[in-house]
């Protein structure tokens, strides 16, 4: 058979057609039920934003005045909880409406179970005719989201808008980004550990240091402490906010856009005007060291807390600018705007950040504000809610049915039933637990009404430890009531253990 140049060109000319058909067949099935008048959905997630540090939620420092402005036309959820104490489980729960013990993204850099590639917020809305877009600065979110990219019309990696990007996997190994980026980090940039690379890693660090020095000098006046960034990228929030505004202006409507921004995640680099804020007399009540104390002294924690608060104020200023622009452009008249975070941050009990095994409120109590299209009044909801509720609430808000695999409930005021008040809410920390095994090494928090039960399982020296707090009378979680309110503790313990047994069942051997 002769295959000449003309035949080759004919075949090559058909390739785009074949490719476009392939991408259609791989993408979400779009029934296009949503009309162009259907409301948009814009989900703004600010990483590591603890509700305990937000003035709107009663923090003594005025960290988020612009969020308070937004609250005047939104529903404010006062007892909202993340699904875990770090990005992977928290974001996984937000995107799937299921708890971490179900979606199984438990560890750092973990992905969702395969069945969630079609069971997630992007796929559900795409199948209803929504244009779906996803963006995150956070590598851990990108590891989750890259696997869901077939459900996304527009998936943008942070390198596209970063000021500086020292990663190469996003460019070179895009198709296999998840595994490649994990390997890239292990080979060149293991944080706080020896890298797999003998020569290239120190060379990379040295060159990066030299390059960063020149960039930092350029931005010295704007960001005197350092330029916002993480995971070997720098991305001033100003650029990201501008980019989001550009995107939402040109996106086909109706759209669902999930925008996950890294600030105020550590390192805390506020803009110059905020870097001198909060040098005040205020000090939080000291708390006793926990058995998982990391040994941070009180003064050190106070200092870091101040930096974090400054960084939050910077985040708030940029959120305010975004909010004003969205308002001015009239976009909020036809958009559900969700403001939340994936987990919190901690500066107490000798513990800093959120890489802890504990699940005290500072690491899991996060903000949630939802503004319905055209909403002009404030509503306050004091009953507990979870990040798994956001997805079903949005579906219900559009009058869409809720898939039965979603574990969250529809929140008030969208749902008026009282059932939401009586249920249990969970947060799970299981980064050392096998993905495909029962939950044996984990911390689980269960919030029911005013009570919060924390269970430490499988940890050496602390296996089977429980703590019980009454959040209504003791919001700072200072008095462990596990021994003194034994009957309540036992009842809650039975419920929690039954739930864990239930979620472990698929992973236990049948014999």
């Amino acid at each position, binding site marked *: 058979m002769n295959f000449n140049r003309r035949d080759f060109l004919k075949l090559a000319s058909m390739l785009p057609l074949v490719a476009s058909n392939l991408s259609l067949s791989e993408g979400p099935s779009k029934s296009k039920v949503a009309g162009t008048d259907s409301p948009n959905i814009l989900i703004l997630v600010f990483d590591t934003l603890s509700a305990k540090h937000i003035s709107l939620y009663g923090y003594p420092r005025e960290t988020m005045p612009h969020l308070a402005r937004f609250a005047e036309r939104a529903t404010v959820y006062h007892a909202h909880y993340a699904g875990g104490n770090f990005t992977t489980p928290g974001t996984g729960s937000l995107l799937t409406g299921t708890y971490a013990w179900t979606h199984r993204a438990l560890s750092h850099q973990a992905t969702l179970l395969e069945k969630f590639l079609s069971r997630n917020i992007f796929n559900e809305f795409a199948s209803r005719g929504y244009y779906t877009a996803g963006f995150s600065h956070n590598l851990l979110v990108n590891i989750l989201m890259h696997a869901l990219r077939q459900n996304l019309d527009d998936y943008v990696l942070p390198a596209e808008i970063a000021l500086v990007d020292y990663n190469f996997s996003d460019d070179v190994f895009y198709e296999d980004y998840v*595994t490649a980026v994990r390997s890239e980090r292990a*080979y060149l940039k293991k944080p706080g550990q020896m890298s*797999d690379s*003998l020569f290239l890693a120190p060379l990379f660090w040295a060159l990066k240091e030299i390059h960063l020095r020149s960039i930092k000098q350029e931005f010295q006046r704007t960001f005197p402490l350092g330029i916002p960034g993480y995971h070997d990228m720098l991305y001033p929030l100003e650029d990201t906010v501008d980019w989001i505004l550009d995107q939402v202006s040109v996106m086909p409507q109706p759209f669902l856009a999930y925008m996950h921004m890294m600030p105020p995640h550590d390192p805390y680099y506020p803009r110059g005007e905020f870097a001198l804020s909060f040098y005040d007399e205020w000090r939080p009540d000291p708390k006793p060291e926990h058995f998982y104390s990391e040994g941070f002294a009180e003064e050190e924690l106070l200092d870091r807390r101040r930096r974090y608060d400054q960084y939050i104020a910077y985040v708030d200023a940029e959120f305010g600018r975004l909010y004003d622009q969205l308002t001015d452009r009239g976009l909020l008249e036809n958009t559900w705007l969700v403001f939340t975070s994936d987990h919190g941050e901690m500066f107490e009990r000798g513990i800093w950040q959120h890489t802890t095994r504990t699940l005290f409120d500072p690491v899991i109590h996060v903000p949630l504000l939802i503004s319905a299209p055209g909403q002009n009044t404030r509503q306050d909801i004091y009953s507990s809610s979870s990040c798994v509720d956001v997805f079903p609430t949005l579906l219900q808000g559009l009058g869409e049915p809720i898939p039965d695999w979603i574990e969250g409930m529809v929140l008030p005021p969208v749902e008026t039933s009282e059932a939401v008040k009586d249920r249990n809410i969970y947060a799970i920390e299981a980064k050392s637990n096998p993905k495909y095994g029962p939950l044996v090494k984990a911390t689980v928090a269960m919030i029911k009404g005013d009570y919060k039960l924390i269970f430490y399982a499988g940890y050496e020296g602390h296996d089977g430890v429980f703590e019980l707090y009454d959040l209504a009378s003791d919001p700072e979680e200072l008095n462990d009531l596990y021994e003194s309110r034994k009957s309540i503790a036992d009842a809650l313990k039975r419920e929690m253990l039954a739930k864990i047994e239930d979620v472990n069942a698929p992973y236990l051997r049948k014999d």
Partner: protein
Amino acid sequence: MVTFKQRFTTQGLIQLFVYCAFPVHVWALINMFRDVPSWVLYMPSGDVIGSVAYTLSFALIESLIILLVVLFVGMIVPKRWVLEKYIPMASSWLVELSVMAIVFQYFIIHHLPKRNLVIGFALILAVSTFLILRFPKVGDALRWIGERLVVLSLIYLFFDLFGLLVVVFRNV
């Protein structure tokens, strides 16, 4: 090409490759196998194989980059010197630099001052250079060790190429 062949014999090239590849691979594999248990906890087996493949491919690329640097230096120093002194000297430097790279990583991680470290490195390199120039038996010993490591390095190379294939396969 002629100049290259005049400077580097096949045996010399193999010795240099071994001294480039061996420490890079040993270090990469030690660190990788420390991670594998945690990978198994949260990754499907396909991704574990993928991660191993990337590590091996990166190690191959790193070895080749270092080899290229060594060969480049070998092309700019006098020809007679390359044949007599450069290969044992480069071999010794590669071993010392490997140890130094580990120490350097440790210092970076723990934010320790590096100025004295650099001075110490320079001294060690100078002393080893002197030993090789003064005592030819040191060079012979390095060649002897290199010959013993050839088979192991070829095994690494085989797995590297296999890893590279896996990486290519995962990205098409």
